[in-house]
């Protein structure tokens, strides 16, 4: 049975999915890849936009999400973030 993911891991998974799709992705792809309910996905996407990790764009075919520099930095420094939060009991 898979261990329950925490918030930091879910954010990592969403950002990784966006990055792996050449930096731009549709919501349905995120829903499929990130293993979240639609409501949870919407909440996380809203948070990621508000906090500046991703951008939302309206195209002719619908919404797409792209990762920006803060999101990239999160992915690069993810192991450091996890090490710090787990070592100091903050997760």
């Amino acid at each position: 049975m898979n261990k329950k993911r925490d918030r930091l891991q879910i954010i990592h998974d969403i950002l990784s999915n966006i990055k792996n799709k050449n930096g731009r992705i549709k919501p349905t792809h995120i829903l499929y890849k990130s293993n979240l309910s639609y409501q949870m996905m919407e909440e996380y996407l809203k948070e990621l936009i508000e906090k500046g990790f991703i951008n939302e764009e309206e195209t002719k075919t619908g919404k797409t999400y792209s990762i920006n520099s803060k999101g990239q930095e999160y992915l690069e420094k993810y192991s450091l973030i996890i090490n710090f939060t787990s070592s100091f009991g903050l997760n």
Partner: protein
Amino acid sequence: MMREYLIPGWFFGYDILFALALLIITLAVSLYSFKIYRLSNQKESKFFGIAFLLLSISHFVELIFSFAILSDLTNAFTVLEIQELITFNFMSVLIHAIFSIFGLATLAYMLLKIKDKKIYFGLLIASLLTLILFGDRIYLLYIFSSLFLAFIALYYAVDYFKKRERKTLFITLAFLFLLISNIFLIFSGSNPNYYVVGNSLEFIAYSFVLINLIKVLKK
């Protein structure tokens, strides 16, 4: 009732070194926590950073006060009049106590996941008023600190034994040692050696925190 806290003469100087080390360690943890918050927007990291920043300010005040007293005793700098010394002592102890208790209260609030902010601010205000209104501030500081540290140490100990994650061993030990050090400091009014033991245990506790931080940075 006022108590006298006697510090063994030979310990002058060592307490300054300890305060300096504690200042550096708490500041380093605080700055790194804020860096992690900037990267992740995780609010626990923000509160952890704020808590350790408050603790580092309290150690800074302690350092300045201890240095001023030592300077006066060795007559190396300006000689403080007795009244100035009493006022300086009053303000330094009060400021040191306030920042120390606020730091620990912030840590407890964050770790225990207390949702109601009113409880947090209520604790801060109650601590502040008690410190200002009652005479024996050092004793109150150690009592309040021990109460908060008991909750914090219990949280980490339960978390460690439940999850068996070796990563949190050092931070668990740190807060257990901090709790024990404060208990010794409570009784340091009756025995000056307890002041030495308490400060030494506090130094060991923060050494564990430093080791924990170094382990994170090395990976």
